[in-house]
């Protein structure tokens, strides 16, 4: 086993453990952790067997196998970024609805309080 292989393996196993730890500490939701765990497993597989990368790269017509790695990496990051934008949109939508709901409910509470005061007088 050469040095790059060991370093790469160490890094991906490290990331895998880090993600598991984040979930354990409740700092990362399982839903989002799944994606990152899959990625690290994917990288571990590629590191362990160079053959997989070579076969896959040549299979789709890429003659320099490591560039497949870059391609997959960029595509993956793109998907994650779009996914986050979608999540962000959903969150701002519910944030917006909550603010309106709070405003309307607060008004209702005030109206009820005024009504109660009127009854007591």
């Amino acid at each position: 086993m050469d040095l790059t292989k060991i370093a790469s393996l160490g890094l991906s196993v490290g990331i895998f453990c880090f993600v598991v730890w984040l979930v354990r500490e409740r700092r990362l939701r399982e839903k989002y952790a799944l994606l990152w765990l899959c990625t690290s497993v994917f990288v571990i597989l590629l590191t362990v067997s160079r053959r997989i990368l070579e076969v896959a790269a040549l299979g789709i017509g890429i003659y320099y196998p490591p560039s497949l790695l870059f391609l997959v990496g960029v595509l993956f990051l793109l998907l994650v970024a779009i996914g986050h934008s979608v999540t962000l949109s959903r969150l701002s939508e519910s944030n917006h609805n909550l603010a309106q709901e709070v405003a309307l409910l607060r008004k209702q509470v005030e109206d009820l309080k005024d009504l109660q005061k009127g009854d007591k007088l």
Partner: protein
Amino acid sequence: MRILAIIPAYNEARNITAVIEDLKCFSGDILVVNDGSTDDTAAVAKGLGAEVVSHPFNLGIGGTVQTGLRYAYEHGYDMAIQFDGDGQHRGDQIFKIVELVQRGEADLVIGSRTLPGGYKMGITRFIGSRIFHCLIRCLAGKAIHDPTSGFRCYGKQTIRLFSRFYTDDYPEVESIITAARNGLRVVEVPVLMRGRLSGHSSITRRKSAYYMLKVTLAMVVDAMRGRDLVGES
């Protein structure tokens, strides 16, 4: 018919008194939607006897108008009027935008400055309005000359639709498409308006390019949506 005047207000403490005074001739209820103002807009409005709803933080004009429309929907109002908190709109013009909705001949009436009898606007705003005018004609088959006007009257169906679907930022133009494509009758009537009393418009020169792009995208996407929103419960 029960009518609600919705006044969206963000830091309008200096203008709000004049605006509410101006609405003395108006026979319906007045709701000030305070969009997270940092001044005492809410207190001043309350002191003048208006109903006040306050957002916990700033939502923008679209969210503010929508809160008013949700209030109108929940309280069963037949009509709602949008009346800006900066003093540009005139209380004595309300009868013009209310009339068609009252007679059941329109669902959304826009008080317009550019029709004969209206006011002149700045050149940039004029060009922007023309572009939107063309876009609206293409997408909704309607000629609206002053699509950015915020002086409006909403009928019951429109209140219901917009209390569910309304944009946060720059909603005026987009809402015309939404309404028209959902089978609501959108009509424009000429009204008189004033220049603003104090404070600044929410659309600055720097923002106007973004405004044009965002609204154009929103209108095109809106035109690709379904039309059955009114029928849904």
